[in-house]
């Protein structure tokens, strides 16, 4: 498993496509609380965590027990950790849950990359 994090518009998916030779059909773009692990790459995990928050589900618990499914996955999550604490409780929880998920995934990932202006910083 590989985790790629970074701010909005930084080129995380472009980096993943180039580094891991992914085609468009290899990419699953998160929209709700379910993830299709049959695709090699799972993009926009921050949308998955937002959907989980809205559905009152635990995004980390979703991954527990699915280790086999995502053993070879390339997971991409937007870094939303650095702004002012959001006024909205939902966005506050979203921010926390996204951070918690990234920590969990990073611990279990073989490689963690942070993308800054299209360039990789290897964190693990």
């Amino acid at each position, binding site marked *: 498993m590989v985790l790629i994090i970074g701010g909005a*518009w930084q080129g995380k998916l472009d980096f993943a496509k180039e580094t891991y030779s992914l085609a468009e059909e290899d990419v699953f773009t998160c929209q709700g609380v379910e993830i299709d692990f049959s695709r090699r790459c799972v993009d926009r995990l921050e949308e998955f965590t937002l959907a989980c928050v809205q559905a009152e589900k635990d995004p980390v618990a979703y991954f527990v027990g699915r280790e086999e499914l995502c053993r070879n996955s390339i997971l991409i999550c937007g870094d939303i950790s650095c702004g*002012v604490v959001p006024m909205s409780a939902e966005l506050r929880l979203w921010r926390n849950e996204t951070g918690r998920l990234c920590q969990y995934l990073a611990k279990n990932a073989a490689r963690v990359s942070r993308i800054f*202006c299209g360039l990789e910083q290897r964190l693990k």
Partner: protein
Amino acid sequence: MTVFISGGAKSGKSGLAQDLAVRLADGGAHYYVATMIPVDEEDRDRIRRHVADRDGLGFQTVECGRDILSCLDRVDCNGSFLLDSATALLMNEMFHDGTVDEQAGERCARELAVFVQSVKNAVIVSDGIYCDAARYDEVTELYRKGLARVDRTLARVCDTVIEMAAGQQIIYKGGLPE
């Protein structure tokens, strides 16, 4: 040498950029490309503070808040250029005359790439505005996307790419002169 520097607010970007621009000039001409178009007293104060910061460093100021390539015929391209910041330049390009120019990010990225490739030494400063948990309105998101386009283009064409954090350098690409 061309250097791209980004990072959070008050992380030491401008200080490093000034220092580098002077060192790269190696006694030759060094220019401060002033991108901010002041609209109020707060802006003018900010400019006065920055001017005071640069006092004694020998920069020649070139005012250019828009159309960045237009300043090249007023300067010696063998000199060293400090452009602080891409953020202000894009602001001026995108929000001109009370309208929103959706092509500004693309144009700004293209022009800045030509700019850094036209001069001997350049240090370009931008701002990291991409890591917060906010849902922005369409216009703000267009600006964020546009600046990211500028940043990624500069990160590709510049020799050295640095993120500043608490005055420390995280080097993503290239290196710095001794």
